């Protein structure tokens, strides 16, 4: 186990980065965000077919790559760096992790190829540390009624996975109503998913909070990618931009802020890597309690730290770009929006810190 990247991980990174550079530069992402179809499903199919990202978590016998949270984290870093509008987090991480716990083999195989896309019908803001609000119920006829708000990836999902209590239901997208409203994050819009006497199939029992904790720990790597892009873009800008006959980046007041941001990002990288490493060590289903707790603790540390770092670096990036940072044409706003919305996703930083009261034995006042 290591906090560094393996050679295989670096090769995976290079493939993803190369493809995103060709197909999903900032201008392309911005144009798409303004269109009626913010997700780039062509890009998604290429990522799945050529690099196999959709099946990373899926064991080889189900047609996946048999990789782990470590490789998933590297892909998330790259997708974060590009604010790429693809349903990797929602379908290949969250929905796939849920299905692997349930053991639903057929659908897992379909997701692994990237030909089918799924979304877990929970709010993106759902916290791993509190029960989901029970807004969906099962009728006498066994159909589903109700609605879930702020679901990410629902508008491009072929299948919705709906937790009702401890049961997980599988629902075909054509039977649900998906309403996309304007979202803070242009590159990962959220939608309200409504069920109305909707046929669904119960496919197993799931503790959705485990999946959310897993998602939170890995989302930290996406946040790391967002922060890295912002840091690099800002650095490039303040080396070029002159005021008072000097590069703006030569002023100590700016340099010290950049040094602090760099240090935050260095620590974010270590935290995100640690979470990916420890989550990779926990197989689905039975695992030693200590290993599960170590993964949860690492996820809480990484998500709380990386959330705040991504937001801080994105906000500083806007500020240090000056007027251009406030414009629509400069892509930094896409990163700020992604950073701020992922700060909320799967539990805000404070929720993860609160969880450490138990995980790190730092009890709250009575």
């Amino acid at each position, binding site marked *: 186990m290591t906090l560094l990247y393996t050679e295989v991980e670096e090769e995976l990174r290079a493939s993803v980065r190369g493809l995103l550079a060709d197909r999903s530069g900032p201008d392309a992402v911005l144009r798409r965000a303004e269109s009626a179809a913010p997700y780039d499903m062509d890009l998604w199919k290429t990522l799945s077919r050529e690099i196999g990202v959709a099946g990373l978590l899926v064991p080889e016998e189900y047609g996946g790559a048999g990789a782990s949270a470590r490789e998933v984290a590297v892909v998330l870093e790259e997708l974060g760096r590009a604010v790429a509008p693809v349903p990797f987090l929602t379908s290949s991480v969250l929905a796939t992790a849920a299905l692997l716990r349930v053991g639903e083999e057929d659908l897992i195989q379909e997701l692994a190829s990237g030909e089918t896309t799924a979304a877990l019908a929970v709010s993106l803001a759902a916290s791993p540390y509190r029960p989901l609000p029970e807004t969906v119920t099962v009728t006498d006829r066994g159909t589903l009624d109700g609605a879930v708000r702020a679901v990410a990836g629902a508008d491009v999902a072929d299948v919705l996975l709906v937790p009702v209590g401890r049961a997980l239901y599988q629902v075909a997208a054509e039977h649900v109503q998906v309403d996309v409203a304007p979202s803070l994050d242009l590159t990962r819009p959220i939608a309200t998913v409504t069920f109305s006497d909707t046929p669904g199939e119960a496919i197993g029992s799931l503790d959705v909070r485990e999946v959310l904790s897993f998602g939170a720990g890995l989302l930290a790597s996406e946040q790391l990618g967002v922060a890295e892009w912002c840091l690099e873009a800002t650095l490039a800008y303040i080396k070029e931009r002159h005021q008072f006959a000097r590069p703006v*980046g030569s002023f100590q007041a700016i*340099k010290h802020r950049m040094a602090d941001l760099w240090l935050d990002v260095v620590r974010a990288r270590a935290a995100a890597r640690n979470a990916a490493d420890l989550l990779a060590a926990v197989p689905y289903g039975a695992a030693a309690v200590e290993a599960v707790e170590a993964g949860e603790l690492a996820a809480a540390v990484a998500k709380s*730290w990386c959330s705040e770092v991504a937001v801080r670096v994105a906000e500083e990036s806007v500020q240090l770009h000056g007027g251009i940072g406030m414009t629509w044409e400069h892509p930094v706003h896409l990163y700020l929006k992604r950073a701020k919305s992922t700060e909320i996703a799967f539990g805000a930083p404070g929720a993860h810190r609160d969880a450490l009261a138990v995980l790190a034995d730092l009890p709250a006042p009575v």
Partner: protein
Amino acid sequence: MTKGTFVALDDKTIRERAAAFLAAGHDPGRRLEFLRARFDAGLAWVHFPEGLGGLGAPRELQNVVEQELARTPQLDTGVQAIGLGMAAPTILAFGTEEQRRRFLRPLWTGEEIWCQLFSEPGAGSDLATLGTRAVRDGDEWVVDGQKVWTSGAHHARWAILVARTDADVPKHRGLTYFVCDMHAPGVEVRPLRQITGEAEFNEVFLTGVRLGDDLRLGEVGDGWRVAQTTLMNERVAIGGAPVRRGGGMVGVVAETWRSRPELRTHDLHQRLLRLWVEAEVTRLAGARLREQLSAGQPGPEGSGMKLSFASLNQALSGLDVEMRGEEGLGYDDWTFRRSDSVDFFGRGPGYRYLRAKGNSIEGGTSEILRNIVAERVLGLPSEPRVDKDVPWKNLPR
């Protein structure tokens, strides 16, 4: 550092070496002799060359040695900190074979304590401005000047010293690095009482101190480059030590928190959790940096470790005092004393709070370290400098 020539030195062989050393029957009750034997067995610092306390092994295998020999006499890393952390790597990198053999063994065993004669009243962060002169006189150098903030000078046998040997060239180019004999005539050490009440550091006056040319480390005029080695090692030594999860200063505060439920408030809880997270991510970044170093990848993260260590230590020690309420109003002992070293964990919370204020000043201020990160890691341009090409003697002082 070169790897072993004949056998690959891995985890297992180091473990065997340690076991063989223990089986040789050195008496742990005779501390000094035990430590000398450990040095001679190459188990002092395994990445040093053979014959100089090491085995030429990868640096990270030192952990294996420490584990295996954990129950034997240990170094006093407090009072020996400057010798181990700064003098030794510099002597290894720039010393002659004779200097390495003369100095490293008693340095490691603690028979000879070291201090660092760098800062001066007029040259702290701007270290290269220093004015202590060394003038050549045959085979000797005659040193005159004043140093300050010299930790442990009162019990040091030797010092690493930077002095000006040429005033006619710009400041960085006229320096030379020496080992200073602290017992030589003309060396006078005066305590400086600190905000903690004790005198851990000193002023050192150097008046006509004669040092043999065999005490010079590196070339004449190359002192700045030699000093860089010391300073980089200093930053790693201060901020880079491995800690276990929840250990170090955060461990002290967390322990009080756990054992004293009556002190807990919601505000303190939120702040403690925040600092616990920061301590954990800082620990992980340090662990990652050490992995990078042992994998041979140069990691610029090193300069940042001391920065984060300083701000964390300060925030945690401040929280510690506040958390204790009434007890935080007291202080363990204001008696003037000449301490051997920093005693974060042997003293009270008030001492820790006050002493931690030095963490962002000693070994490079946090401001200087931010400049280093910005310029050398991030590649940002330096501020315009008026003193760069001016001979030192013409600089305004």
